[in-house]
């Protein structure tokens, strides 16, 4: 990888990291959901620096094509983020289910109480009382 390419990749990575951090700062993403994004952003920033320097280690570990290894790491990072999103979706669905159910039950209760109040507020004759 030439120095120019490394520099371009590094600048893109830093821009991406800053973009994520800015979104966190503006509360577009909460910190708890941004941890993986920020971690992955830092990892991508390190890529242009470490690519080439770790090839000897990776080859010694039996990796035939080091760039494929970097792709694998990137893919696993993205999968981790997707998994976190799925967990969060499950939690949200659970919470909205409970909210919808409670709301429906409460609405019925309010409707019943309103009917009861209307009945109590009506003249005794209308209530069937003498």
């Amino acid at each position, binding site marked *: 990888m030439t120095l120019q390419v490394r520099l371009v990749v590094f600048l893109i990575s830093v821009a991406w990291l800053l973009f994520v951090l800015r979104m966190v700062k503006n509360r577009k993403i909460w910190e708890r959901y941004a941890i993986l994004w920020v971690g992955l952003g830092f990892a991508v920033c390190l890529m242009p620096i470490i690519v080439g320097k770790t090839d000897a280690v990776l080859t010694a570990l039996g990796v035939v094509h080091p760039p494929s290894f970097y792709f694998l790491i990137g893919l696993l990072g993205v999968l981790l983020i997707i998994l976190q999103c799925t967990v969060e979706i499950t939690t949200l*669905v*659970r919470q*909205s*289910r409970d909210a*919808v*159910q*409670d*709301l*429906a*039950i*409460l*609405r*019925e*209760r*309010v409707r*019943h*109480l*309103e009917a*009861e*109040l209307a009945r*109590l*507020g009506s003249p005794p004759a209308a209530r069937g009382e003498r």
Partner: protein
Amino acid sequence: MIDHLVSLGRRLTGRDPVQPASGGSASSAAASVLETSPAASPGALPATPPVPRKRTLIVIPAHNEEENIVEVLDELRSLGLEHDVLVVDDASRDRTQAVLQRRGQRHVRLCTNLGYGGAVQTGFKYAVEHGYDHVVQMDGDCQHDPASIPALLQPVLAGEADVALGSRFIGKLCYDVPFLRRLGIALFRSVVSFFMKQKITDPTSGFQALDRKVLEFFTDDTYPMDYPDSDVLLALHFAGFRIREVPVVMRPRTRGQSIHGGWKTFYYLAKMFLAIFMVLLRHFRRKIR
């Protein structure tokens, strides 16, 4: 809001508006489960303790069932059962809610579609909150014959079972179950019967009578939102609940759309296998611990 209504009621009447109501009113709550003895006169022996009256709620989940629900409710009314009926309208897009309102039928309407399990669970939560002792769960598509309700409830009322499962295969099946569905039922029947060490002929039946303990068990996160079938039976069995099958009459659906069918069949099969596997995994993990 409720506090406001209650205080308004007090101001209007000088008494608590939430009184035990006749006809098994929704807000009668725990107070109405007690049938007290006549008021004791001064100096008389202490009054006998209140005798608890068992209360049963029939829960009917309905999604786009404007054509069927009227028939189901009419049938229930004609039987003259003394149970309260709650229809859970699962965000129907047709006139189901209008039909229920016009009839003055007690119902809760979910503001968004939760699916069959989510609607049934709402009924369970309602029953627990309002102090019911038993629930009969039946579909709003006319397939479950309400005349089978007394037989279905009997083992639960007698304390012989916590769940009575209505079976169309030991009862009367008035229609041909499609081949694929029959195959699925046979498959899940074998799996459930094997792990429960008890013959279950209709593990996918949604016609059930349940005891309050089961309702409380189901109000947490264990109840699936889409298809509560064989996985739920296994979870109940592993939790120590007694399940008994009761013959019931099931009829063909003549109107409206089933929750099964089309691509959903494949989703159902895949999801059910995964859910059963997870129930077994949780159970055996607990056992190992």
